[in-house]
């Protein structure tokens, strides 16, 4: 059978990183094809190449769709051939109606005047196809995420879709909605529409996928055919994580002492939807000199947990208690949490970590200006000394401490953020994705800093989506999924398979 889509030898590089290396993907007509892989394996990048988000010329390799070589310059280009992608974050306008959203940009109009009757009629037909019983004039904001997902699909159908790409479509859906969505994919298949399903949930993959392509570190490692014989989840997991651990992590010799940081029964609700509980009764203990890892998939609630503990920077209706050095600590505002000895190094350094238009010196002292000032007047010489010290200690590669942080590389920006928090003198550090988007050399240096912190007797919590990294630097690992800690294991006994199984099991149970 002639494939409907062939991606051959796709290579895409970002400065310093090979995001995709010689990736091949082949989709047959009327097939549900799952693309799986760990966070950062290159799934999203591959789909962005396919849909024209990264236009032709920014990658190398060929895309052949329906027997023709395609050079997509934009999303509009790929959509016009019938390749439609539905992103994890839905691209619907909340305060417009279902009909308005479906026809957004393709209005049923003559000379700019919209024929609403026509739009209404066609919307109704499309909604019937996806099995959504809502009035076309209902506002998007008034329907749930599952139904919004269906609207997105109806929108795709309206564009005469031939290949539907779904990026984590069920990540925010409950069981019933997920099943309905998967059933819909099967129906499309019967009508001859192919789908690419990107997902972490391997039970869904075994339910619907005809074939499975596994990506790891930006490379295709395996394509499994489920039509001939059943593919077990274990087989997929092995392909996803199967690589050797080598000594990419510096050794550490910290002695682990008494518990210094304890969180009990921590619960948090979503900041906008008060009835949605995001964190559900989490218990966490970190001992002196210990590095504790929190593993989990994106959206499992790790960042939300950390930020809600750090001065309620996230969420509402927060309950639970925090103890530092055995005493109840007040962490109700960020200044109080800092006073209690907490520091939170954000996962998004550009949005939450740095004042990008300002230079290194000002960023380093931002969280502890009192440390370099007397009676509200900044002592410039003392400040310069502090900044230079951290620049040297953490090897921040820059022309001077007066270099604007926007011009630094990701790794050096991360070191500036770390410097800021080190200078605030915390006893407990929560590092959220401390090595995201930085190169291998800088990662090794960051691991070294984490080790030094532990050796200096601090309690360190590391949140990371790279399981290998967690296994390499932690003493103990909590596994988080859907707002709960679903497993806890000493790092020595932990493996990536075990962590993955714990996550899968929590979904099934």
């Amino acid at each position: 059978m002639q494939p409907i889509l062939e991606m051959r030898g796709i290579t895409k590089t970002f400065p310093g990183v090979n995001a995709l290396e010689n990736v091949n993907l082949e989709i047959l007509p009327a097939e549900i094809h799952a693309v799986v892989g760990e966070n950062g394996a290159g799934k999203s990048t591959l789909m962005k190449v396919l849909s024209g988000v990264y236009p032709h010329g920014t990658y190398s390799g060929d895309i052949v769709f329906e027997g023709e070589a395609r050079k997509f310059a934009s999303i509009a280009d790929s959509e016009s051939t019938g390749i439609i992608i539905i992103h994890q974050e839905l691209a619907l306008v909340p305060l417009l109606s279902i009909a308005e959203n479906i026809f957004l940009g393709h209005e049923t109009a003559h000379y700019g005047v919209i024929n609403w009757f026509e739009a209404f009629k066609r919307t109704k037909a499309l909604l019937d196809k996806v099995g959504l019983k809502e009035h076309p004039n209902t506002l998007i904001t008034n329907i749930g995420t599952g139904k919004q997902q269906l609207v997105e699909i109806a929108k795709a159908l309206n564009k005469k879709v031939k290949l539907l790409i779904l990026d984590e479509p069920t990540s925010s859906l409950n069981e019933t909605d997920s099943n309905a969505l998967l059933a819909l994919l099967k129906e499309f298949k019967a009508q001859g529409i192919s789908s690419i399903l990107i997902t972490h949930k391997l039970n869904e993959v075994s339910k619907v996928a005809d074939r499975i392509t596994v990506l790891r570190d930006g490379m295709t490692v395996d394509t499994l055919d489920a039509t001939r014989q059943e593919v077990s989840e274990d087989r997929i997991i092995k392909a996803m994580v199967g690589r050797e651990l080598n000594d990419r992590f510096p050794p550490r010799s910290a002695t682990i002492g008494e518990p210094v940081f304890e969180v009990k029964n921590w619960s948090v609700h979503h900041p906008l939807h008060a009835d949605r509980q995001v964190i559900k009764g989490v218990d966490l203990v970190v001992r002196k000199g210990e590095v504790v890892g929190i593993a989990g998939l994106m959206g499992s609630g790790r960042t939300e947990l950390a930020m809600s503990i750090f001065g309620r920077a996230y969420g509402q209706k927060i309950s639970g208690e925090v103890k530092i050095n055995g005493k109840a600590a007040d962490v109700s505002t960020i200044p109080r949490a800092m006073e209690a000895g907490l520091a939170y190094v954000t996962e998004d350094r550009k949005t939450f970590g740095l004042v990008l238009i300002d230079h290194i010196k000002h960023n380093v002292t931002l969280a502890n200006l009192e440390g370099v000032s007397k009676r509200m007047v900044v002592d410039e010489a003392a400040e310069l000394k502090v900044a230079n010290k951290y620049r040297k200690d953490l090897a921040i590669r820059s022309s001077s401490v007066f270099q604007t942080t926007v011009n630094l590389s990701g790794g050096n920006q991360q070191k500036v953020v770390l410097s800021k928090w080190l200078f605030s003198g915390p006893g407990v550090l929560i590092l959220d994705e401390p090595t995201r988007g930085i190169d291998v050399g800088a990662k090794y240096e960051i691991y070294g800093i984490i080790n030094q912190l532990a050796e200096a007797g601090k309690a360190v919590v590391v949140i990371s989506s790279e399981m290998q990294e967690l296994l390499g630097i932690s003493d103990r690992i909590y596994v988080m999924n859907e707002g709960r800690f679903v497993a806890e294991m000493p790092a020595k006994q932990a493996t990536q398979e075990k962590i993955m199984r714990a996550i899968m099991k929590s979904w099934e149970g």
Partner: protein
Amino acid sequence: MTDISSKAVESTDILRFVKANIRDYALLLSLLAIMVFFQIATNGILFTPLNMTNIILQNSYIVIMALGMLLIIVAGHIDLSVGFLSGFVGAIAGVLMVTNPFWPAELRMGTLPTVVICLAAGAAIGALQGWFVARFRIPAFIVTLAGMLIYRGLMIAMLSGRNLGPFPSSFQALSNGYVPDLFAFVAPAGINLFALVVGAAVTGLVLWSNWRSRVLEQAHGMADEPMTLFFGRNALIAAAFLGFSWIMANHKGLPNVLITMFSLVALFMFITTRTTFGRRVYAMGGNEKAAKLSGINTERITIMIFAIMGALSALAGLVYAARLNSAQPKAGQGLELDVIAACFIGGAAVTGGVGKITGVVIGAFIMGVMNNGMGLIGVGIDWQQVIKGAVLLLAVFLDLYYKNKG
């Protein structure tokens, strides 16, 4: 041979440095160019002692408010209410000090309590606006637009549409008074020696502090301004200060309001560059989320900057009322536009996080000299507005143009 090449190095250094700091130099050069142009166009009237004094008096309230406005804009907000707030406070002063139907004559207040009450009222009103912005996240544009309408209405209501005046002479002195010549006993006739002495002292102080910070920078290996430029720049500063004090000395000496304005400029330079508070305002404007996550109480800072703005608006309103010697129902109208324009001409960024006090002062004087000069050569109010608008647009356009070009 070596001599020539080292000179070549020096001149490329100068070019590179000027390029890197083009914005600051362009601003200063624009002010100079505008001054020279009007000096010629007005046949030398611009720099006469009388006219220079006038420029100071006419622009003092703009500069005073622009100082606070810079903080607001750097923090990423805007305050549209400053014009009518200043007028409203002027009206309060009028009611407190001058006869009013609701205010028995025996309860009339003196200058000092009036000034204190007015400044406190301004600060309180500003803080209230800041509270709405910080606590409820209502855009400052909306809060201060509402304020603008409210203060205007209150002002007209308090004055019942009439002028209230005259003020006691001690109050008028806020704007129209001069520092007496302490050295009159030795001064030559017609020369205010005190003005010269103060001018020389301030010049010395500025040069000394520039030199000190250069030495400090050199000690840390970060002085990148070429020597020639440093001396050239400081020679210009000295010439400007001394020339200015000479002009003042030839008239009635130093106006009180000049002293007020100058002290405030110095204070705000200190606040913005040296204090933790100033640093936090800039950090907040640069990235509010990062500032907040670094433990900075952004709500409190927002309230504080609006309170400062309110107090400065009040002060400006008092100076304005003192200058006109009456509280008028049209006072302060449109001043907010000149104040905001001064900030943006002076290089403050619309997106927040960027702006300097020196820039804003120069920006205010660019506006002021243009107002004065155009008035002198007989450009009508209508065309003055057109030209000022064009200058504002051009200044911001050039700023962004050079920024995008890198």
